[in-house]
């Protein structure tokens, strides 16, 4: 009898208790995997050392300016508006009225403090170099900030959209050297965003609570939760189980949600151009004919149709945005016969023949594996024998950034991607000859004078009316000189429950930040 009683009690617990426990979230709550995917940076709380994760960070911190949700132009956040002097050296920001989450007033002194901290290498800030053109930051009154540059910088506003403003009253007492290891970031941070930090359950999730005094209006939900997942597949399981309402997904998963009425698929430009990098320290790729042959040998449209379901734009230079594409680009339409002819002209049989060439990548998704296999097969048809090698990101970076004399053949070819927007200057570190390691990010060691000159000209252009033309020249040089075999710019996907209302997400590089207006997000 006793055993039977215990069994009944256990059955009741399992049958009635557990589902109640699982669904117990009484305040109006939105939970999501906001740091899942390439734009996320889970478990990082310090915006000064962030290389991603800005979608989440900007729910409780704010920059002066941020991109609109379409990533087409910058708009005001903590700065209501701004003026640029005629010589493009002085930026004057008119600040919004706001209070920090701990009730202290937000003033221009906080902005000055933040920029000086972000410029200070001792704080570990990754903005130190990018803000190097700042000559001074002045705060003439509580609501005005003037930033003076030592020389015009066309990317300045785009750069500062990632500088999230920090509270001087909370951080000034911490030495810059100690800031990176301070527990403040993950325990008691205060920002000015629509949500305020509540708690971080180590490696599990971060919980924010609505800031009822937010200047944009009281948030419509009480709690915002960012759950951490080891991989997108685990986040998809939680989404399907109804435990979260949003996550980034891989393209293959996105397709499975398109027919499900409970979810809406959010699709957007990745702003990352994928390419086959051709290491210029390897003799094989010094001849333009070989680089052209690789372009003609790869049927990009077929790959886009079959592996991306058409959701990618072929790239004939580093850009695909219409305003950056000049007339008369060579489309390098698939033509294996022409590829073979070009290889013959270059004497490929003598310089390499069918010797294997490593095609290195850090992309580990099934889709990337299929892309690598397709590229391998297409190149094999014209006589180029590539051997794909997939490694994790640290290993990839360890190989391509290796100091001294790396083994060039270890990354003779790479399948990689680089941010090409919304600021087109994003490609400069990967292609300009001035950026060859150890001075920069040009890991393929590309030293093309025409291309570098085009980049330098575009970067120095301060006349907005001439800027697009300058970047078109960069595109033209890329198309002609082929520093990379450019492939495409693919779309990326997020899945949101249809229970969410006025939810805004876009697959911005590094997660933005962009005007997502989390205070307007609602759930039914």
């Amino acid at each position, binding site marked *: 009898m006793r055993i039977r009683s215990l069994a009944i009690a256990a059955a009741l617990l399992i049958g009635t208790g557990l589902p109640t426990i699982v669904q117990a979230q009484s305040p109006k709550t939105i939970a999501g995997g906001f740091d899942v995917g390439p734009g996320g940076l889970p478990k990082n709380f310090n915006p000064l050392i962030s290389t991603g994760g800005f979608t989440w960070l900007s729910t409780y911190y704010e920059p002066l300016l941020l991109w609109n949700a379409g990533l087409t132009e910058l708009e005001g956040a903590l700065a209501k508006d701004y003026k640029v002097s005629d010589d493009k050296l002085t930026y004057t920001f008119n600040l919004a009225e706001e209070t920090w989450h701990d009730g202290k007033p937000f003033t221009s002194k906080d902005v000055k403090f933040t920029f000086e901290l972000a410029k200070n290498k001792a704080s570990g800030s990754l903005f130190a170099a990018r803000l190097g053109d700042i000559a001074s930051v002045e705060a003439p009154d509580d609501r005005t900030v003037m930033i003076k540059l030592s020389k015009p910088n066309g990317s300045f506003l785009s750069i500062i959209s990632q500088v999230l403003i920090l509270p001087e009253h909370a951080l000034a007492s911490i030495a810059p050297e100690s800031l990176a290891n301070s527990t403040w970031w993950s325990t008691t941070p205060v920002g000015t965003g629509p949500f305020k930090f509540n708690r971080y359950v180590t490696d599990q*999730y971060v919980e924010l609570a609505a800031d009822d005094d937010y200047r944009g209006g009281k948030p419509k939900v009480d709690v915002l939760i960012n759950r951490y997942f080891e991989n997108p597949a685990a986040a998809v399981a939680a989404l399907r189980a109804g435990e979260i309402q949003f996550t980034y997904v891989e393209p293959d998963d996105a397709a499975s949600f398109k027919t499900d009425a409970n979810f809406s698929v959010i699709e957007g430009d990745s702003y990352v151009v994928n390419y086959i990098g051709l290491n210029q320290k390897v003799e094989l790729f010094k001849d333009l004919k070989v680089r052209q042959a690789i372009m003609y040998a790869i049927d990009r449209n077929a790959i886009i149709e079959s592996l991306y379901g058409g959701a990618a734009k072929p790239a004939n230079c580093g850009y695909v945005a219409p305003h950056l594409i000049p007339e008369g680009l060579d489309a390098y339409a698939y033509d294996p016969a022409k590829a073979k002819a070009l290889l013959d002209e270059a004497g490929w049989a003598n310089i390499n023949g069918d010797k294997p060439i490593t095609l290195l990548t850090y992309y580990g998704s099934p889709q990337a594996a299929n892309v690598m296999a397709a590229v391998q097969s297409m190149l094999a048809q014209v006589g180029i024998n590539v051997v794909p090698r997939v490694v994790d990101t640290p290993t990839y970076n360890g190989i391509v950034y290796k100091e001294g004399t790396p083994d060039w053949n270890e990354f003779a070819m790479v399948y990689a991607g680089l941010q090409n927007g919304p600021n087109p200057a994003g490609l400069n570190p990967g292609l300009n000859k001035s950026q060859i390691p150890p001075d920069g990010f040009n890991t393929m060691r590309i030293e093309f004078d025409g291309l570098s000159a085009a980049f330098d000209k575009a970067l120095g252009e301060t006349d907005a009316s001439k800027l697009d033309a300058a970047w078109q020249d960069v595109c033209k040089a890329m198309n002609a000189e082929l520093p990379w075999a450019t492939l495409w710019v693919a779309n990326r996907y997020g899945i949101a429950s249809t229970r969410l209302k006025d939810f805004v997400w876009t697959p911005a590089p590094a997660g933005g930040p962009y005007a997502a207006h989390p205070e307007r997000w609602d759930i039914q």
Partner: protein
Amino acid sequence: MLNFIARRCATGLLMLVALSVLIFILLRLAPGDPIDAYINPSVPMSTSDLETLRDRLGLDQPLPLQYLAWLLAAATGDFGYSIQRSGVLVLPLVMERIGPTALLMGAGLVIAIIVGIATGIYSAVRRNAWPDIAMSVLSFVGISSPAFLTALLGLYFFSVLLRWAPSGGMQTAGAPFSAADVLAHLILPACLLSIGHAALIMRYMRASLLEVLNQDYVRTARAKGVREFWVIIKHATRNALLPVITLIGSTIGIAVGGAIFLESVFNWPGMGLLLVNAVGTRDYPVIMGATLVIGACVILVNILTDVAYAFVDPRIQVS
């Protein structure tokens, strides 16, 4: 005895130092460092940015100096800060993971022992009847199923399709802590962890009991008129359990491996998840700290086992 314990402790300490040197060297030989893990290859960074990171982490120092600095600090209990987590000390981070892993492993093993022994007994008693055949087939499936398969299938059926259990984590995000909530999150990964072990224990239990049931003393018990239930439970099972207990002891090590995988699939915040994360991000201090704590636990258990043997079996001389 005291001499023996002292000697074993000293040897254990030396082994820990040797382990730390080995891990330190292996980590540095592996391609990529914490900075490489921090770089998003799609987002341009300048070398100056990278230098800032390297300076902050002390990775620009010569390797012997880095190791000595780490060893001296570790000797005082300071294992440093996690590289990938702002302001998080390694030792508390590692120590707080022991409990969840022990909970998951313990629950999985308890379920495996109960289910394995019960089904093993039933199978042996009903030898060659259809329940025995069915359970034998199921046990072979259980033994043959790799942890990654059972974990993913279990996640899909019980969390996604049936929604009987949460899909991951140790507690409901946003909900206050409660033991019932932890139990709800524990039950699915623990059951999945137990499958392979339960199947193995079942096979051993069945074989062992069948052997014992043919022994003379069992026949004698029956001849004396003891009820069949008590013959099985009191006379046969107690003796048949001895090899099963040895098996259970030896499967604990295997359970650690399974728990590490399940922790990743279910985002269970234990040592396994911590180590997988740390290796993926080349978080050297966390890898060193976690491996040393695991090593220290293993060495401690071995010392305790040796001492226990010496107490239990007088034939073993500790000298």
